[in-house]
């Protein structure tokens, strides 16, 4: 019953987002072009690197292309559901608009996290899938159905990590109003997620695996899809880190909410 109510609320939010997008059709298309350009840029970077080498660690060219595609897919789905909502949180706190959302008879985190949907990002996610498919073709590799399901499941875990960490950073805005810069700073870390994990060593690798698990988010799904998973435990690690990140972000959210004093109007 409760779940059904949340579904109908979310359906209404979707309808709102569709209406919003149809108001600025030209802009909608331009943003898709922008995202395609940046995606092309990353692929160009990879091709230039592979002009000068055959391997990065154990990763061959088309495996890395697949990794970049998977990373783009995960990032775009994250963007579709969560990015705008995370970056807007500091604005809600600064202007005191959060009051109205807290008064609604639903879970506040739910409404804050799901308020807007970025429809263009779904279109961009398709370009990620296209690149993954082409890379699989170049690798002469036909993934089996279980592979694909495992890949999608791990993508969800990756998206959960991105969402939890970015949401946690966004709650900093309860403590200082200038949190928006930090939230965008996290966006920089997406750059790491699409690089092959073999390249990293030492403290850097440790930090970005166990503290901020950027090197798991898309590397593990891509490894599953290209059949180059070395240890089964990295799957468990990704799932475990996703659960841990979500739990920590919930604790952070509750602690921050207690500090909320609204804005003097």
């Amino acid at each position, binding site marked *: 019953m409760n779940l059904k109510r949340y579904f109908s609320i979310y359906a209404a939010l979707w309808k709102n987002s569709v209406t919003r997008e149809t108001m*600025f059709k030209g*802009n909608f298309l*331009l*943003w898709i*072009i*922008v995202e395609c*350009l*940046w995606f092309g*840029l990353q692929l*160009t*970077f990879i091709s*230039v*690197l592979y*002009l*000068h*080498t*055959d*391997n*990065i*660690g154990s990763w061959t060219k088309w495996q890395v292309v697949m990794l970049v595609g998977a990373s783009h897919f995960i990032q775009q789905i994250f963007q579709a559901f969560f990015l705008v909502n995370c970056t807007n949180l500091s604005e809600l706190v600064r202007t005191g608009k959060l009051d109205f959302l807290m008064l609604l008879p639903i879970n506040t985190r739910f409404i804050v996290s799901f308020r807007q949907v970025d429809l263009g990002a779904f279109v961009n996610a398709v370009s990620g899938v296209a690149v993954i498919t082409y890379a699989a073709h170049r690798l002469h590799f036909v993934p089996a159905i279980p592979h694909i399901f495992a890949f999608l499941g791990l993508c969800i875990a990756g998206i959960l990590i991105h969402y939890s960490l970015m949401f946690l950073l966004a709650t900093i805005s309860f403590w*200082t109003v*200038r949190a928006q*810069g*930090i939230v965008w*700073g*996290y966006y*920089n*870390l997406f*750059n*790491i997620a699409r*690089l*092959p994990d*073999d*390249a*990293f*060593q030492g403290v*850097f690798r440790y930090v970005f695996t166990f503290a901020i698990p950027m090197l798991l988010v898309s590397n593990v799904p891509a490894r599953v899809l290209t059949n180059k998973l070395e240890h089964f435990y990295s799957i468990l690690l990704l799932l475990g880190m996703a659960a841990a990140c979500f739990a920590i972000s919930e604790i952070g959210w509750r602690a921050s909410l207690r500090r909320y004093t609204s804005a003097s109007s």
Partner: protein
Amino acid sequence: MKKYRHVLNIGIQNSLTYRFNFLARSLFGLIPLMAMIFVWRTIYRGNADTKGTLMVGAYTFAEMVSYYLLTTIVDALTAVNEDDWQIAADIKDGNISQFLLKPIDYLWYRFCLFLSGRVTYLAVAVVPLAIFISCLHNYFVPPHDLAALGLFLFSVMLTAMLQFFMSYTMAMLAFWVLEVSTFIFILFAFEYLASGHLFPLDILPAWLERALYFTPFPYQLYFPISIYMGKTTGNELIHGLIIQFGWVCATYALARFAWNRGIKKYESVGG
């Protein structure tokens, strides 16, 4: 001139309130930089093992690391921060009306704010950047010679002007379209690749590198660094500086032209 000095002063005080943001930005910026160095290290090691070569294009590993460190330095000195967004917002919100009445030129006013933003950013970012570079000092090659260092700094100055005039021109689009951010991002994408942010341009196939030199992009980052590293010397250097100066003049003229056209449109709509 005195009034512009005041603008500089106010600009510095304004951007000082963002010092925390600047610090966060420069710290976060170091992470992708580190990642890039790791990736190149893996490539150099792999090449040494399989091909027995220690070079990528004309770069040793130390030179490659220096290249990326220099891009960070030049970026800190010249990158446009939020100036283009603010200019576009000023036009959209009608804030520029007051500048039409005041005896102050909007372009130079914004240029002063841009400079003060850079000065403040540099003051904040210099500490983390210096620590980072000193950790990597084994890989940081000194300038080719003293003249190269001087010409590098001169070229960086031109780069800053080129960056600003280009962004200013882009922001002028706000006279005609509601949302300029998409256009700014499209230009930025080309700039990111063609100016040498992602990799030094001379590791590209030669024909592509030559083609890029017909655009202003290499002069926004790659060119000054190539002077520092002694990759551009002699006649080529003089030529390059003249072309860079030409691009500065051209973008300045374009910025003025776009403003004049925009103002006509603005007045005809203005209420």
